[in-house]
Every structure is written in C-alpha cells, then in structure tokens.
C-alpha cells in the first residue's frame, strides 16, 4: 500500500501553483484507493476524500504526525464540493472503494469519516447497507481535522462554511486564466474593428485604438475578476452583476480620466460602458465560486444582468465604431 508523505515535495507545490493558476484544471488527479498516512493500524481512523490532488495534498499536510487511513474515491479529479453536486462523490462510489481496497480486513472498527461538504452527494445512511461501514461527517475544512480527531466531534464553527479574504483570493487566478482564450480572440477583433475609419482601414488607428481597448479590458478584469471577489462582502447590492457594474463603472471613470487623453467623447463613453458591462459579467461569473449563492438566485440575477451586459457591450461597440466618422 502506498504511504503518503505529510510534507509536500517541490513537485506537489509546482502542481498546486499550476492548478491554482488554471494551467492544469481538469487533470490534477490521483489514483483512487486506500493510502496510509504515518503508520496506521487496525484501530486507526479512516478518512475519505475525493481524488482531486489538491484535496489530498491539503488533507495529508494538515495531518502530519497522525497515523491513519486515507480512502481516496474516484471523483474524476474534481473537488469534493462540486463532485458531490455532480453525483460522482456518492455513497455507491465510497462503498465501491471500501470493498475494492479490502478495508474491512485492515481495520477492526467500522467507521468512515467523510468531509462534510460531500453530504450533497453522499447519503451517509446508505453506506451501512452498501459496505457495512458507518459514515460520519467530519469538519468542512481539513485544517480542523486534527481537532476533530482529538474531540471525536465537530462543533458549530467547524460545520459552518466560511468565505474569508484568503479563501476568496485563491480563486482569482483560475478565474482570470480561464479568460485567456476569450481575451486573445477579443483583442484580435478589437484591432480589426478599431482600424475601421473613413479611409476604410487605418493600421495606425487599429494599433492605437486597439491598444486602448485592450487596456480597457484589463481595467474591466481588474474590477470584475479581482476587486469584486476581494471586496465582496463590502460592496453594495446583493446581486453580483450589480456589484460588478458598480466597480466597473468606477474603474471605467478612472480609466477614461487617466487614459482618455486625445479620445473623442463618443470613445470615452464607449470605454466607460464597455468596462462597466464586462466587469458586471465577470462578477456574475464569480457566483459559481462562492459557497452561498443558490442556483435559483443566480438564474434570477442572470435574467437581469445578461440584458444589461449585452446591452452595454453592443452600445459600446456601436459608439466605438461610429466615433471616427464624427
């Protein structure tokens, strides 16, 4: 049986950076099965987690000095939370790994400790029937595992989900990196559109105005995908598209003041609308990463946010195209 180190190697750390920055998103997984942490025996507890390598890395790091079994179930490399929602982290899957690993022959007790956030996928009551083990939900965060193991139970704080500044900050790089392809495509389009002029097409204008537009994009990304997540609890409004629009318009105002020299009025207005609309959209997309937005709520706000975003974008484009002709 494989024994896992409780310290991360430089390769693990590089891997973490790669995943967190969005370079490797869907392929960071571990072979499912039973692993040892330290030197577990028949009385050692059994922890269950998904095979997203970041989850496993966090768990094993937090449990340095402990002796226990780690049952890694096949969630196709997705984190526990999303896997529960998608149905891959299920009682059936846990039971399958229990049987496959011969866990019953290795331990004297019949208890599994599951991450609380897998409860949306795992019906713990079913495990007994399926594999003879009793499923119990441990704490939400791996950092609370040592305390949980010592006490044998989780308190209210361990069972409450949080969304602290640091928890929001680690989500930002992925959000941004997912945008690269779209950005590249958009920039290309911007240069082409920006070159259209009364003389049909001007390379000089394409470069000059295209660069301005690309910079405006950077401002929108900063407002919608960086500042919004960081400032989330302090921004006005509950709907994310509004939070993003507020910050976006603010960023837009600053942008046209700083970088607007030599631009026509129509162009300034176009930039303002564009930054506001894009930031609103990016902020709305961040709902997918928070642990407090309901799907019904997101759908509801999107019915309002999308028309605003599409409207501002179209208007901005129109003004931008029209400007050279006035």
């Amino acid at each position, binding site marked *: 049986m494989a024994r896992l180190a409780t310290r991360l190697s430089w390769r693990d750390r590089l891997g973490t950076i790669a995943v967190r920055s969005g370079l490797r998103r869907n392929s960071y997984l571990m072979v499912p099965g039973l692993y040892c942490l330290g030197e577990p025996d028949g009385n050692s507890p059994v922890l269950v987690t998904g095979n997203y390598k970041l989850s496993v890395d966090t768990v094993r790091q937090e449990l340095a000095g402990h002796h226990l079994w780690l049952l890694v179930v096949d969630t196709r490399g997705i984190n526990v939370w999303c896997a529960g929602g998608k149905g891959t982290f299920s009682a059936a899957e846990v039971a399958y790994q229990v049987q496959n690993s011969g866990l019953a022959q290795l331990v004297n007790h019949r208890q599994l400790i599951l991450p609380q956030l897998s409860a949306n996928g795992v019906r713990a009551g079913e495990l007994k029937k399926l594999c003879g083990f009793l499923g119990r939900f441990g704490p939400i965060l791996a950092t609370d595992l040592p305390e949980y193991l010592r006490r044998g139970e989780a308190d209210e704080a361990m069972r409450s989900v949080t969304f602290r500044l640091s928890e929001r900050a680690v989500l930002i790089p992925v959000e941004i990196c997912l945008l690269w392809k779209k950005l590249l495509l958009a920039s290309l389009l911007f240069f082409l559109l920006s070159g259209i002029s009364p003389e049909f097409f001007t390379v000089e204008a394409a470069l000059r105005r295209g660069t301005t537009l690309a910079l405006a994009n950077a401002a929108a990304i900063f407002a919608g995908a960086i500042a919004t997540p960081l400032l989330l609890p302090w921004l006005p409004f509950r709907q994310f598209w509004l939070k993003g629009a507020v910050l976006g318009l603010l960023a837009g105002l600053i942008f046209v003041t700083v970088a607007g020299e030599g631009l026509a009025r129509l162009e300034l207005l176009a930039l303002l609308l564009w930054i506001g609309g894009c930031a609103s959209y990016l902020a709305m997309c961040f709902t997918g990463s928070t642990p407090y937005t309901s*799907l019904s709520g*997101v759908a509801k706000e999107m019915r309002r946010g999308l028309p605003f975003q599409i409207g501002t974008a179209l208007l901005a484009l129109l003004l931008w195209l029209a400007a050279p002709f006035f």
Partner: protein
Amino acid sequence: MQGYRYLDDTAILRLDAEKCIGCGNCLEVCPHRLFTLNDGKARITDGNACMECGACARNCPVEALFVNPDDGCGCAHYIINSWLARVLNKQSNGCGC
C-alpha cells in the same frame, strides 16, 4: 454566514414537518446551519440563506426535505449553457468545472 447575504425569496427549500422524524441529519450537514430541532421536529430558521446545495435533502431518511433539484454548481456558465441548450434543442455540456 456572516457578512454575506444573497437574494431573498428565491432559494427553493421546503420542509414537510408531517414526514420529519427528527433524526437531526439536516442539522448536522447544513453548511449554513439553517435548521433547529424543536419537539422532535426540524425547523428551518432562515430559508433565505439556503444555497441549494442539497446536502440536507440527500441525507434526510424520510424525504421530508425538498431542495431545487437542478444540479450543477450554481455557476453562470452552467446556466448559460443550459439556456443555450434549451434554445438550440441540444444537450447541455455542463459548466466545465
């Protein structure tokens, strides 16, 4: 959840007190601590704070709880894709996360 509040009167979360046997599973699993147990029956304390994760309904042994069953992790891409799929009459390809 301190410091955060999402839309009111939107999340779909229902509790059928008739069916509830007071096992306490929902109290344990809810990451937003939205249940209490009074006289052997669960009660929802703050339904507006529900994020529709479905953990309570999944672990209720008597199906006394109902949560918006539309899965996916509540992200905008997922919703756009499912709307597009409906318009184009195609299978949604999820959200890619």
